[in-house]
C-alpha cells in the first residue's frame, strides 16, 4: 500500500514521532495543569514543552499557543471568537469547509455579513479581489495559505498587509502549508490555525491555534482549565481561555516530535523533495489527464487531476485496487470546486517526505494503463 493522500493526514509518521508517542503513553499519565503531584507536574511540563516548540516554530509566545482537536476546531474558535459581535467577514473562494461552513452558518443566522473573494491564478488579481470587498465594518479575513484541492499558494503576505492597513484581523488556515513552507506570524498573520497531523507529522486529533494576541478571541467552549476554579467565569487569559477540558497530551507530544522532525529534516528540503515528486508525477502523465495547475500560480506539493471523462471517485477506486491511496471527490471544499468548475470533483496526488520516485513512477504507469481498460 502506497499512501499519496498525505494532504488528509501524513502517513507513515516518522520513527521519532512513534517513539515519542510510545514513551508518552508510559510517562505522561497525569492530567496537565490539574494537580500538584509528580505525575501531573511531569505531564504539565511535557505539555508546556510542546507549547514552547510550537510557539518557537511559528514565531509566537508559548501562552498564545493553543492546542485544539484539529484545524477545523481551531478555525471555528477563531472565526466565532472574533466575529462574536457581528460585522463583515471576507473568506477566500478556496476555503475548506472548516472555514466556509462556520462562516456560512453565522451568515445564515444573520450573525455576520459574508463576502467571498475570488481567487485567480494571478496573485495581483486575487489581492485586488480581497481589496475590493473591504468595507468599513470588515472585521476579519479568513484565507487559506494553500488550497487543499489544487495546492495553489495564495498571496497571503500581501493579503495580510492589506488587513493590517485596514485594522482587520487576518485569520490563516495553514493546514496544507505548515511544515511545507516556512509560515511565521511575522508574515502578518494574527491568528494561525493548522492541523498537527499533516505537514507537522503529529498524530490525528491534534490541531493548533497560534495568535499574536492582538485580537481577543471569545471562547466558544467553557469549562475546566485547572485555574481559578472557584470562579464561574471562564479565565480571560490565553491559553486557558481557549483550552477547556483535558488536553490531548499524547497528541501534543507527537506534534512536538513532529515539528522537531520537520526542523531536523529542513522545511526547504521537504518542499524540494515533495515538489520533485509532483513534477515527476506530472511528467509521467499523458495527454488524456487534466492537471489543475496554472503557470502563473505557485503550489505546495499537491496535484489535482482528472483522467479523461472517468469520474474522480472511479479513478481513485481503481487506483486503490492497485494499492495506491489517493483522495478523490470534493475534498470538503465546495467553494474551491465551484471555482474550478469540477462537477465530479478531482483526484488529489499529495506525497509526503517518505514517498519515493519509484512509487510515483509505479503510480503514473498504473494511470496510463488505466485508460486502456
Amino acid at each position, binding site marked *: 500500500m502506497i499512501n499519496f493522500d498525505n494532504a488528509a493526514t501524513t502517513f507513515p509518521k516518522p520513527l521519532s514521532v512513534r517513539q515519542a508517542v510510545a514513551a508518552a503513553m508510559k510517562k505522561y499519565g497525569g492530567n*496537565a*495543569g*490539574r*494537580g*500538584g503531584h509528580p505525575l501531573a*507536574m511531569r505531564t*504539565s*511540563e511535557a505539555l*508546556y514543552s510542546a*507549547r514552547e516548540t510550537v510557539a518557537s516554530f511559528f514565531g509566537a509566545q*508559548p*501562552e498564545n499557543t493553543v492546542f485544539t482537536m484539529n484545524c477545523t476546531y481551531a478555525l471555528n474558535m477563531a472565526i466565532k471568537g472574533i466575529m462574536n459581535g457581528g460585522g463583515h467577514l471576507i473568506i477566500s473562494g478556496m476555503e475548506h469547509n472548516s472555514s466556509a461552513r462556520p462562516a456560512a452558518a453565522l451568515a445564515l443566522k444573520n450573525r455576520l455579513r459574508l463576502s467571498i473573494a475570488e481567487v485567480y491564478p494571478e496573485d495581483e488579481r486575487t489581492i485586488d479581489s480581497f481589496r475590493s470587498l473591504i468595507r468599513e465594518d470588515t472585521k476579519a479575513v479568513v484565507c487559506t495559505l494553500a488550497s487543499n484541492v489544487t495546492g495553489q499558494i495564495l498571496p497571503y503576505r500581501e493579503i495580510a498587509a492589506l488587513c493590517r492597513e485596514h485594522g482587520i484581523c487576518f485569520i490563516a488556515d495553514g493546514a496544507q502549508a505548515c511544515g511545507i513552507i516556512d509560515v511565521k506570524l511575522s508574515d502578518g498573520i494574527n491568528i494561525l490555525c493548522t492541523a498537527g497531523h499533516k505537514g507537522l507529522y503529529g498524530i490525528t486529533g491534534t490541531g493548533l491555534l497560534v495568535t499574536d494576541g492582538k485580537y481577543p478571541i471569545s471562547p466558544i467552549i467553557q469549562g475546566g*482549565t*485547572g*485555574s*481559578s*476554579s*472557584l*470562579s464561574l467565569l471562564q*479565565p480571560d*487569559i490565553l*491559553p*486557558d481561555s481557549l483550552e477547556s477540558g483535558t488536553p490531548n497530551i499524547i497528541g501534543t507530544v507527537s506534534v512536538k516530535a513532529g515539528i522537531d522532525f520537520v526542523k531536523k529534516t529542513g522545511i526547504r528540503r521537504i518542499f524540494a523533495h515533495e515538489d520533485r515528486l509532483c513534477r515527476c508525477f506530472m511528467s509521467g502523465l499523458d495527454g488524456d489527464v487534466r492537471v489543475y495547475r496554472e503557470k502563473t500560480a505557485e503550489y505546495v506539493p499537491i496535484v489535482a487531476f482528472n483522467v479523461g471523462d472517468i469520474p474522480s471517485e472511479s479513478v481513485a477506486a481503481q487506483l486503490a485496487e492497485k494499492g495506491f491511496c489517493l483522495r478523490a471527490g470534493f475534498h470538503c471544499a465546495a467553494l474551491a470546486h465551484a471555482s474550478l468548475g469540477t462537477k465530479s470533483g478531482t483526484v488529489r496526488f499529495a506525497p509526503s517526505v517518505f514517498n519515493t520516485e519509484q512509487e510515483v513512477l509505479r503510480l503514473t504507469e498504473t494511470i496510463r494503463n488505466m485508460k486502456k481498460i
Partner: protein
Amino acid sequence: MHSSCRNGVMVMTVCIAEMPSYTYAVKAERLLRSRGYRCKVVRKDKNSSGGCGFLLHIYGYCLEAAEILERNAVPFKYINDISEGGA
C-alpha cells in the same frame, strides 16, 4: 541575588507569586531562572482563595523579581515575601 538586606543584615528571602495559569507559572520560572533566580512551580494549597492554580516559589529579592516579570509582560496576581521577617 537570593538575599536582601534587612536592618543591615543580608537575609535569604523566599517569595511566593500567585500566577494566573500553569503556563505563565512556567514562563515566569524559565525567565527568572535565566536571571539567576532559583524557583519552583508548585500547586496552590487546596484551601486557597480563588480555587485551583499555581504558585511560583522564588528564592530572591521579591521586588526585583516582580519588576523582571512586569518588564517581560508576564502577569501575576501578587508576589509576597514569605521569609521570616518578610513583609
